[in-house]
Every structure is written in structure tokens, then in C-alpha cells.
């Protein structure tokens, strides 16, 4: 098993943390994993990419992910600004925080309204809903590689405050339950 993912988010939105928690979760399951941020500069709001690799063998590569098996979009507005499908493998999938429940062009797309879920758990920092943990519920569901329990345990590892960890894990679990192929009923 060897998977490469690319996360698309905005600076300050938590894409790096999302990929880090996913790596933690995979490692908790005895797998090998990486999360590689790619900043052009640390600007809040600017589009950022984060690369993720998960494998059952040690990972040697450190270059960027060019042909992901899956892309994860934290911010729906980005699909108008960035070619999020660039280099996606022919049978690759998209996992999108989507308010509209529509698939991306000719790609098997999983949708979840992570923004709504984050707000319902009061996961809002400086006016921004933090969707990065909710989206991981969707990643767990869509990929079937890392379990939602491991995501939950990794969230507990990531956040020093048990209350914050609890709210984030609850958001991930809600998203896990609500994620479906786009176009299916939410």
C-alpha cells in the first residue's frame, strides 16, 4: 500500500495540521507517513499545498507530490483559483469541503460540508471556521486506509487541551458519518 495525497487550503486554515494529524493517525496504525508543507511565504489566506504520503514501508522520497491518488480541498473557493485536479492520477479521487454537493469534473468526488460541521462544534478561530479536523473524517471515510478511531486518537495527541481535542474529534466523527459521493443526499 502506497498512497500520495495533496491538500489544498489557505494559510492559517490548518491544512498543515490536517496532514500532520493524518500522518500521526497512520503511524498509530503502524504505517509510515509524511506530511510535507509547501509554503511560498507564510501569509494568512494565501493558497497553500501540503503533501502527504502513507505507506506500509519506510518512505524515502522527499520531493513534492505531483501525481496524487487523492486531493483534499479544505476551502471550496479555491477550486476557482487553483487547478486542484492538476496531476491527479486517472482513477484518483477528490475529497471536498463543499457547500453545494457537486462532483468536480469527471472525478470521483466525496463531499462533506465541513464548514457547517466545524461551526456546529464551535470550532471557530478569529472568525474562521477550522475545518481541518472535520475534513479528516471525510478523508478516513473516502480512503478507507486510516480508521476514524485512529484519526480521533491522533487528534488527542495533537492538541494539548482535552476539551479542544474532544470537540475536534467529534467534528471528525460527524464528518465521517456525513461524507458521501457528491450528488448523493447529505
Amino acid at each position: 500500500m502506497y498512497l500520495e495525497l495533496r491538500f489544498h487550503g489557505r494559510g492559517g486554515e490548518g491544512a498543515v495540521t490536517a496532514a500532520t494529524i493524518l500522518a500521526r493517525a497512520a503511524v498509530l496504525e503502524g504505517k509510515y507517513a509524511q506530511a510535507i508543507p509547501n509554503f511560498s511565504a507564510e501569509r494568512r489566506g494565501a493558497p497553500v499545498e501540503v503533501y502527504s504520503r502513507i505507506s506500509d514501508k519506510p518512505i524515502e522520497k522527499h520531493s513534492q507530490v505531483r501525481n496524487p491518488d487523492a486531493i483534499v480541498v479544505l476551502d471550496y473557493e479555491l477550486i476557482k483559483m487553483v487547478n486542484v485536479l492538476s496531476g491527479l492520477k486517472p482513477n484518483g479521487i477528490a475529497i471536498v469541503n463543499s457547500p453545494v454537493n457537486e462532483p468536480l469534473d469527471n472525478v470521483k468526488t466525496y463531499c462533506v460540508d465541513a464548514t457547517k460541521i466545524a461551526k456546529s462544534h464551535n470550532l471557530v478561530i478569529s472568525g474562521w471556521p477550522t475545518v481541518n479536523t472535520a475534513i479528516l473524517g471525510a478523508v478516513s471515510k473516502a480512503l478507507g486506509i486510516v480508521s476514524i478511531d485512529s484519526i480521533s486518537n491522533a487528534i488527542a495527541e495533537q492538541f494539548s487541551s482535552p476539551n479542544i481535542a474532544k470537540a475536534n474529534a467529534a467534528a471528525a466523527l460527524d464528518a465521517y458519518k456525513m461524507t458521501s459521493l457528491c450528488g448523493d443526499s447529505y
Partner: protein
Amino acid sequence: MIKTLTGNYAVAEAAKLARIKVTSAYPITPQTTIVEKLSEMIEKGELEAKMIRVESEHSALAATLGAAAAGSRAFTATASHGLLYMHEVLWWTASARIPVVMAVAARAIGAPWNIHVEHSDVVDQRDTGWIIGIAQENQEVLDMTIQAFRISEDPRVYLPVIVGLDGFILTHTVAPVNVPDQKDVDNWLPPRRQPYVITPESKIAMGNMTSDDDYYMMRYSIQVGQEAAKKVIEEVDQSYGKAFGRYYGGLVECYRCDDADYVMVLMGSWAGDAKEAVKILREKGINAGIARIRFIRPWPAEILREKLYNKKGVLVFDRSISFGNAGQLFTELSSTLYGMTNIRGVIAGLGGVDVLPEDFANEMIDFVNKVEENGKVYDPIKWLFPAKYRNVKIEEVVS
């Protein structure tokens, strides 16, 4: 215990396991999270150490040297412009023969401003007397940092050590890291040793003016320490391997290089991608391997001669350049292997430009073709331009 850590946090964990007593640093991307983490550990009471806050990198190393001279295991970290600003004190530290460990988050040097990986900052310290290692991945970052204290404090060496880790590609990338138990590190790492200790009572002056003759002899003694470090680094790596199960090859990691006809030589994180390239090349029938430089100082000349003298060709990848000549690894290696084999230097990945396994493989295929056509190849510089500039007229781009 397996933890999922960034390279920077792996450094901080290692410094904590080595029970450093003093750290002094000035923030600079991509190093900052190392000392942030240490500061947090001190604040939480997990690490009994003092953090000395200073106004610059020059002072950061001066404070670290002072603390070390006073008998403390001391540590600092920096990168890029911070390291260049510190450069003078690197000479003072090595010349004082005081053991110190410093992490360098290898980063490009402006202008234009660039925060991404390059080896120019680290390589720029080649001639200061410091021992200089560069790791490939996060586990090695932790292990090399712990080993660095033992190397630096070995009485045969007594020289400061740099642990290089690639900016962002390691510093900010998380990966699983096996973090040893404190008691195992305590058993393995001897108590601090150093040639002399400054105390309020001691009658020692540091950095005083000496006769030219004595100065000359002290320069000679640094070289003796560097030469001894070749043996010590190998010993320490073997001993660490026995204690913790991870041995990296001492000064040079030989990856499928023994039976190889052609060998790539490089250092840092992209060696992992080059290893993928070796798999691609071997499938195509090219017997390729890698000699990964783990320590550029002391320079592993003997090992490289022994491993490479009879190869059909050696392809060197430099992530830095000595303007007006060639990449520094190339110049070192071509002097070590003078006349022994075909050699080419490739300048790639400057300022964090991504280099893929396919790029390494294609460069090797091109080199092999040239060797097979010409019989004799000596190419100091081949530029591997960024992908977007490969099919354009370069004269127009740089005019």
C-alpha cells in the same frame, strides 16, 4: 517510542535527551521551531536548562560558547543569514576547542529572499574547523544530534559539530521517529568532557594574543582533531547502532554502491529521491548506486577513494555552488578522485527547486551516454534548470 515529529522537533527531542544545560538562539526561519520547542520544554519543567535570550545570532553562538567554556553542555540552532552573521564566532568556537552542538536548518541565502532548502549556508562553514554532518531524514536528524554530542566531547576531537537538516523538507515535514528512552541515552552518552573549564577561580584566558609560532601549532592541532574525528564518527555510529539498532555508515552511507558501475554522490534529504532513481535505473539495466556524504567535514577522502576509484563514472549533485568554479561537493570529490574516474557535477535544487527521482535518473542516463560515447568525461558543471526553464532560451531569461 515512535512519535510523529517534524525534523525540528526531532532536534529538540535529541537536545533534551542529551540533557543540554544551556541554549541560546535567535529566531530565523526555518530553524525557529527548534528553540521554540526547547523553550516550551524548559517552561514545562521537562528540561532543566537555561535559555539565554540574545539580540542576534552572533551573540547566540557567543553565549553558547561562553556557557560551554564554563562546563555546560550547550546547544544552539540557526539557518541561512543567521548562520552567516554568526560566522566569525564559528571560528572562535572551533579554535577554542570547546565542544558545542549546533543544528543548521539548511536554507538559501538572499537576495532574492528565499526560505527554502539549499546547502550554501552549511557549506559556507567548511573551513572554520567545525565538524559538519547533514542528515537525510527525521530519524537520522534525531540520531545524528545525539551522536554529535559524543563526537564533539570526545577528547581525541574536542571540536564543535553542526548537524545540518534541510529547510522545510525536513524541518517542517512530519514523519515517524523512534525516540529513545532517556535512561538508554544516559547510559550511552558519557558525562560531558572538555579540555578546560572556565570558572571564577580558574587561571585561564581564552582567545588571547599568542606568538605566531603557537598560533600555527594550534591550527595544526585542529587538523589533528578533524583527522581523528574520521575514526571517532565511525566508532560512535557503530556504538550507537549497537545500542539503538540504527547504524548509518559513519561518514558515508553506501547505498547499492559496492556492485555499482556508476555512483551518484550527494548529501541531504534528496538522497531519498535519488535512491528511488537507483531503482528506476537498475530496472533499465544501469548499475547505479549512491555514496551519500553524511559528513562533509572531516572530508571522507579515504573512504570515497576506496569506494569509487574503480567506478565507470561518478555523478555529483550539488545543492550549492562556489561561484566562478563549481559545486563544492564536486570540487572536493574531483580533487579526491583526481584522474581516477569519469566525473560530472550537476547543480540542482537551488532555493528549494524540487528535484524528482526521474530527474536524478535522467541525469544519470545522460552521463552514462556521454561516458560511453567519449570514454573520458570531466564536466565540472551541468545545470539542471527548474522544469519551467528547461525548454526556453536561457540567454533570453538571464539577459
